[in-house]
């Protein structure tokens, strides 16, 4: 028969494909994906999704839309804290006792008027209060009431230079290796109406567990962007020379810089 040979080879091809698929699925799957997950080229391909998400989501959200604000009855009984333990230095502990009289927020970098602010000064500036949902990258959510100064107020005081694109937030907490926490957001998120430097949680001074004396609230993004224990803001044009160049403590360990999803 004329058709016999093509059929046989087709069958062989099918069997080969199936065998390959079976092997991939059963034994090799885990190793293959582990290898691919550690491969830089594959990872940079997968990173395309991050840029796609950022562009698409920001297009949909625009600049003026707000995160949902809840009512007082929605507030979670306990605002869960996560990440590094609070800073353990003597200075931090002593200052915490003295209601942060020594602490100052240093603002520097690509700004026309570098400045520093005491907590009292920040509290005397116009404030914003919001009850919002906090979403951790791990999957959990809590609702809390925040009071703080809008980041845009600070920007108006220090006057960022035209080339400034990002704000790096320097923090006082460290991981077990002694690496300081830091984060960065771009100026689009910085001027969002709900982006505040918060000094109160649920009508109380910000607790040590939740980032005293000052933490960021950036309601368009996941929890790890909301840097705690802030000591300084630095306006920069590029994130390349900050940490390992990815723009944040967790970003340097593989998490996305854009945490809107």
């Amino acid at each position, binding site marked *: 028969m004329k058709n016999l040979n093509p059929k046989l080879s087709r069958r062989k091809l099918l069997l080969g494909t199936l065998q390959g698929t079976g092997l991939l699925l059963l034994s090799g799957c885990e190793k293959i994906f582990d290898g691919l997950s550690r491969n830089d080229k594959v990872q940079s391909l997968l990173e395309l999704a991050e840029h796609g998400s950022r562009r698409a989501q920001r297009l949909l959200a625009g600049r003026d839309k707000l995160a949902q604000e809840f009512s007082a009855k929605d507030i979670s009984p306990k605002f869960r804290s996560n990440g590094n333990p609070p800073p353990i230095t003597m200075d931090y502990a002593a200052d915490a006792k003295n209601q942060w009289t020594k602490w100052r927020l240093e603002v520097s970098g690509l700004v026309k008027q570098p400045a520093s602010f005491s907590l009292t000064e920040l509290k005397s500036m116009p404030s914003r209060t919001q009850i919002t*949902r906090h979403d951790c990258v791990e999957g959990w959510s809590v609702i809390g009431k925040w009071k703080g100064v809008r980041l845009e107020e600070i920007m108006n005081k220090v006057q960022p230079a035209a080339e400034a694109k990002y704000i790096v937030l320097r923090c006082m907490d460290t991981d077990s290796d002694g690496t300081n926490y830091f984060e960065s957001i771009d100026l689009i998120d910085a001027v969002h109406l709900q982006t505040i430097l918060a000094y109160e949680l649920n009508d109380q001074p910000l607790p040590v567990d939740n980032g005293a004396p000052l933490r960021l609230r950036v309601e368009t993004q996941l929890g790890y962007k909301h840097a705690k224990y802030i000591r300084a803001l630095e306006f920069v044009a590029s994130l390349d020379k900050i940490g390992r160049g990815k723009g944040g403590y967790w970003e340097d360990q593989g998490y996305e810089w854009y945490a809107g999803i």
Partner: protein
Amino acid sequence: MADNPVKATQRSPHLVYRHNRVTRLTHWTNAIALMILFMSGLQIFNAHPNLYWGNTSEPKKAFLSISAAQDGDDVRGYVELYGRQIDTTGFLGVQQGVLGPSARAFPSWLTVPGYYSLAAARRWHFFFGWLFALNGTLYVIYNLAVGHMRKFFLTFSDAKKVPAMVAYYLHLRKTSPQEGEYNPLQKMAYTSVFVLLTPLVLLSGMAMSPQLDVAFNWLPAAFGGRQSARAFHFILAFGFLSFAFGHVFMVLTQGFFNNMRSMISGWYKEEVPTVIEPPVKAPPTETVIAEESKISQEYTESQIQTPHSAAPAAKIQTTPPPTAVDAALSTPEKKAEKNEEPKS
């Protein structure tokens, strides 16, 4: 050109061109994307293996938890669903590693990547999430354009035939109620995937995004809150898994090689003798009629094992033995149906 249905049908009368290039490409892209989405999703779930209803995740209010607990010298894994605890040691909750047992909701052989990395799992998940959505969009636009979608959309009259189709598969009924390319059960499965599962899994996934929640405040609310959206997303993922199991089961039992070949090369082997030039010249003689009815008799018998193409057989069975005129009438119809699809 292998993609030209008419030429190819002439080349081998027993093979029909069932799946065109777009269908095959989107099918396998979809299969890979769904597998990676499911497995990386389990890894993401492992970061917080609890599900809640509502907006927030208040401790101890989870309706589903996977956890590990020390039991003497032993570490045991548990799944707790609405307060009922099931010991799942060996599968869920705890996994034996080189360094001894460790808490892990879903085992490493079910997750992408296998080692614990929420960051890596998220990268896989979002890349293939985009791919899944874009691939699905391509499929829907293409098939709406060529008019293929309506062939598998479940209508009310199809829905009424679902029990008959189930009975047929269970060998409780001799004839298949199928009319057209897809049987009622297939239509129900595909329609629910297109109308329910896919939109809901995408929306519940997007409802977990803080930025999209800024864009659409109603999105998490539509699911009953962000944690509810997370729970729905998880449950819907298992909806896809059960569809995949059902799908693979049908492929395995309803002519595995034939089905695989048709989704790889496009060609499906029909047991129907395809008449390329229908005999319409002279009125049929007695012998032609006898031959024709013999062929359709064989055809009917052979079709019982392959329900997909059993529909014409079922039609023939209920009518008197077909004449050559019947054959001539039915053939162009079949041809027209085939010509409609492959235009790649």
